[in-house]
């Protein structure tokens, strides 16, 4: 397939397929998880679980005392990566127009040079986190294929986006097509890997806060 043909497919049919698989997987996984249910707690609550549950969904983003000092790269790198990824995704004007074509509305973007810097920092951070996953004893011990797959499908859109942005590579049309395809790959992979955490973390944090909260403990 030529660059223009690939780009056309990626923007059209490719996106339809990717979105379909993504939404199918997301819903199937979530409903499957939800239906496992949870037994009602018959003990007498010391306090309502709702407030603490909601609170933890947000507050767990802050580190436990001592945690930052123990694992600075995991924590800070994690934040730089997540925020950088979201910033480049949501505040680069061409991306905003992509989302506008789906949602029907858009929002102001950041200047391209800023997106460029953020993108580069995000890429560097992801690489640093991968190196840490290889070299740090705990992370190396825990890591499985799923971790590396997730890293790769997350890295590719950033890398291909950077390449396209800077008109590196042989043919911009092809680079753009590869970038869009890498995003479609990411979409397809999300429901079947640990990347589901982007949807389930809120539920996990909720339970954490709720379980402790009904005992009167703020976590």
């Amino acid at each position, binding site marked *: 397939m030529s660059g223009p043909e690939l780009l056309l497919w990626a923007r*059209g049919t490719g*996106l339809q397929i990717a979105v379909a698989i993504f939404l199918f997987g997301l819903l199937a996984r979530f*409903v499957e998880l939800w*239906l496992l249910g949870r037994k009602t707690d018959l003990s007498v609550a010391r306090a309502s679980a709702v407030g603490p549950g909601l609170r933890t969904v947000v507050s767990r983003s802050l580190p436990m005392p001592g945690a930052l000092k123990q694992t600075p790269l995991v924590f800070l790198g994690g934040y730089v990566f997540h925020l950088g990824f979201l910033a480049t995704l949501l505040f680069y004007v061409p991306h905003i*127009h992509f989302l506008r074509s*789906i949602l029907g509305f858009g929002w102001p973007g950041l200047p391209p040079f800023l997106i460029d810097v953020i993108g580069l920092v995000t890429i560097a951070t992801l690489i640093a986190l991968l190196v840490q996953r290889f070299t740090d004893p705990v992370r190396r011990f825990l890591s499985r294929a799923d971790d590396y797959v997730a890293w790769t499908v997350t890295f590719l859109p950033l890398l291909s986006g950077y390449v396209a942005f800077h008109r590196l590579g042989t043919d911009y049309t092809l680079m753009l097509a590869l970038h869009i395809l890498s995003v479609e790959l990411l979409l397809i992979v999300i429901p079947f890997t640990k990347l589901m955490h982007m949807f389930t973390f809120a539920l996990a944090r909720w339970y954490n806060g709720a379980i402790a909260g009904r005992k009167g403990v703020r976590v």
Partner: protein
Amino acid sequence: MADNQTVGETLASRGISRRTFLKFCATMTSLLALPPGMAEVMAETLARTRRQSVIWLSFQECTGCTESLTRSHSPTLESLLFDAISLDYHHTLQAAAGDAAERARVQAMQDNAGKYLVIVDGSIPLKDGGVYSTIAGHSNLDMLKETAAGAAAIIAVGTCATYGGLPHANPNPTGAVAVSDIIKDKPIVNVPGCPPIATVITGVVAHFLTLGTLPELDSLGRPKVFFGDTIHDRCYRRPFYDQGKFAKTFDDEGARSGWCLYELGCKGPTTHNACATVKWNGGTSFPIESGHPCLGCSEPNFWDAGSFYQALSAKTLPLSAHAGAALAVGAAAGVAVGLVSRAKKKAAARQHTRVSADDLEKGGGA
């Protein structure tokens, strides 16, 4: 009608001065990015050359490509071209009609076998035996194959001839295809555009006339000298793109300040053409300079590549049907496996045998 005059003889008989002719050759040399010394060579060669036989086939087209070529502001350039070639067949420009015209075509093919140039504009419909575009009872398909057989080279002019163009757009009811989809055994130069820039068409022909070869082509068969860069690469509004200054409507402050037209749908970044440098109407302007986003008209399938007025990054096909179906099927699948999970849990609970102190003592569990 073919004649045996050289180009130089023809020019002289038309009263075109050598100076004017040299200016033409110098311009062509420059446009083709050939070394300056080639201007003289071009002049000498063209003057001595027998006027090149050219057969122009117009198929499923709107005649815009011919219009582009003939409606130039400076008669010297393009008409000089017509003086340098012998246009033996062209629906719009020829004097003859009907059987006489077809006889002239066949005669030219015989007289210049293996040497004549074929220029094609318009796509070739294939559906239902090619009945959707015929000339003198022959389908475009048949005429193309017949005419191409003895050609030295084929120049496909306009996006219809190069990639199928408008007729090829979804749902392509006539089964329209490009020249290169049919002819596989002759050198083909694609000069796309809807229409192409007149000077570009002229330049390609001039290259062939002077050097006897076709210019270097890219992977889509387009002359690299004209189609090697994208509009975006050469656009004078590029600094605004880089700074993030975009016009959001056709008449807002950004538009009036001449800011980048990306948000209004400009396809410049993925469009290869010479519009941003060579421009139109003898270098007067080009769409972006006039405030309209580039349509991407020299790229394949540009009609199907999303709205002209939605950004390049926007999706091109609807998603709601796919999304809706996916959500429904996903939910159903989730419920199905979820119920299986619940059944598994219930079964496990039923199979639970109470652990007692005796069991622990025996060393095993329940």
